């Protein structure tokens, strides 16, 4: 990776003045990703917060080529653009180099866009798919997705007299992507910018599909003060709720960060309003279940990565 001084000189793809919320992690993630290399990008966005907030007509916050088509099809749309690029290159109609990035939130990636994503990965398009995972349908007002953590409050799986937020654990989407045996898959966090930029650089340099699942704290949906985004993202990593790892060709697992002191999940839960109810005494067993699941997943990950616990 280039050093900080060099990175500071690079052109960013997203300009200021967009309409995302203060404290939203999505533009931070996009800026970090786009600093990874200097070849022009073609970016596609699924419908979602990032899309609606950056392209309110007649304005655009994108300095690079950009396309939004619909919600569930960013992977297919960018597949088409990348196929056009290869065709026009082969036919000698195009000289310029481009790299292709498809971006979706967790709704557009884990749920409605999963089929389109799987197709793109299987067909081997040279596209980086980046999921900014804020763990619910934030754009439409904090509804539950298959990425929402167990126990979190959302507007469609709310906390009530008899329910404790979402009943189910999130889908292991990174694992689903790894099963496609694509050249490069990783989990990242904007709190570990160096790691995220390095991963983006790797992802954009492989000759085939790559996938980054990036945790994207949301002040509004997670209910925390907007200046705590990076701290909370860091806590997600330090509690092993969101481990940082990478997988090459679906087989070679590597742990990128091991917390010196793995923090208990309550340290993470207590920072966010969406989990506040879990800290009540009557929900102690739910928290214990969540902690056990994290511990088991972490142990399994260490094993896959050949690391010591």
């Amino acid at each position, binding site marked *: 990776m280039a050093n900080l001084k060099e990175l500071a000189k690079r052109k960013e793809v997203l300009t200021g003045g967009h309409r995302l919320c203060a404290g939203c992690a999505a533009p931070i993630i996009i800026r970090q990703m786009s600093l990874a290399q200097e070849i022009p990008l073609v970016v596609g966005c699924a419908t979602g917060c990032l899309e609606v907030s950056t392209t309110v007509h*007649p304005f655009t916050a994108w300095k690079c080529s950009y396309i939004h088509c619909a919600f569930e099809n960013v992977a297919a749309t960018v597949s088409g653009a990348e196929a056009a690029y290869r065709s026009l290159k*082969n036919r000698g109609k195009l000289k310029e180099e481009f790299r292709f990035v498809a971006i979706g939130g967790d709704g557009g990636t884990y749920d409605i866009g999963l089929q389109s994503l799987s197709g793109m990965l299987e067909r081997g398009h040279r596209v980086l798919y980046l999921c900014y995972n804020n763990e619910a349908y934030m754009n439409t007002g904090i509804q539950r997705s298959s990425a929402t953590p167990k126990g979190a409050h959302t507007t469609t799986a709310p906390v009530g007299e008899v329910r404790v937020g979402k009943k189910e654990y999130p889908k292991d989407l990174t694992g689903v992507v790894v099963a496609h045996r694509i050249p490069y898959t990783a989990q990242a966090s904007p709190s570990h910018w160096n790691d995220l930029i390095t991963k983006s650089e790797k992802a954009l340099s492989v000759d085939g599909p790559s996938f980054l699942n990036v945790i994207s704290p949301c002040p509004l949906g997670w209910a925390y003060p907007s200046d705590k985004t990076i701290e909370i993202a860091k806590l997600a990593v330090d509690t092993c709720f969101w481990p940082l790892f990478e997988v090459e060709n679906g087989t070679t697992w590597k742990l990128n960060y091991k917390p010196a002191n793995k923090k208990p999940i309550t340290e993470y839960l207590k920072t966010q309003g969406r989990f506040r109810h879990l800290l009540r005494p009557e929900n102690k067993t739910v928290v214990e279940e969540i902690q056990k699941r994290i511990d088991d997943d972490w142990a399994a990950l260490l094993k896959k990565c050949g690391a010591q616990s």
Partner: protein
Amino acid sequence: MSKKVLALTGNDSGAYAMKQVNPDVVAAYPITPQTSLMEKFAQYVADGVIDTEMVLVESEHSAMSASVGASSAGARVMTATSSQGLALMWEICYIAASYRLPIVMPMVNRALSGPINIHCDHSDAMGARDTGWIQLWSENAQEIYDNIIQAVRIAEDPDVLLPVMVNYDGFIISHAVENITVCDDADVRKFVGEYKAKYTLLDSKNPVTFGTFDLADYYFEHKRQEIEGMRNAVKAIPKVGKEFAKVFGREYGFLEGYKLDDAEVAVIALGSTVGTARAVVDALRAKNIKAGLLKIRVFRPFPEDEILSSLRHLKAVAVLDRADALNAIGGPLYNEIRAALYNRSSLPVVNYVYGLGGRDINMDDISSVYAELSEIAKTGKIKEKVKYLGVRE
């Protein structure tokens, strides 16, 4: 320039035209009865006859989405589908048209589920009639070839820039072998020319944003511009038809009348049924009955004035619809024609919905329509506006 005659199925004729155009990108997903078209096209690619980049997607939704991405990147793009495939694409069909992307799509017409069926009717294309796609309709394998080649030029006309759907009847035309006359690859490529997109994702010096979030302050104007593109197609379609005639020897407009000029009664139809109706007209003419026929080649943009002037002299007309518009007054073609005539003509027009789910329509069926038309022409009275032809009631 040399021409030759080939015996091809409708789908092979479509694949042959696509091969000759040699698009930059084809995104495709198989569906009966479109499948053999894409198989044939894939074989041309596999044999190195052409170097189109094929994107073999996991659904029709992705086929249309990839087509949107590829066309936005400045490529000449084609796909093809039928029935449920079009239904699955439906959302993205609107987007392709509103982004003004000149995608060309052979549409092998098949009944929509449910119940599931694989045979011909027009419910698929009629369901997409308001998506902003130009719709050409083909009577036979020759017209499939001719329409696909012309569709490229119509779609890419700078004043139009709208996608074009080339319709033809599933199985009845797609799988029947006919003799068709084709030109050389070089002539076809010269006719379609090189596509140069005005805006493309692949120009880093002029980066563009496709698909902005278009609210109440701009959306309406953008839709209005799209409507203008459709209106401009009214000029482009006959212009391309005339230029096509110069090279290929067959001229196309919006409509084709058959023994219509001196007719008293006429049937209006789309697709393969036109061929059957021609034979009926000939038989009736032999009996001195002044029967005529009007084929609609272009359903979108709807050729209102041309239809009105072709029908003005008639005494009674029947519209044959191979789709129903459930709970409307008759089928979609009938609705449009009645609307075109309203306040401009007192011509009696009746509707026959026929052939749903591939139910055969034969000469006797169509003869019975002409018999009823003769009765209406005599009495000036319509007993029933909308009837169902060939169904067990």
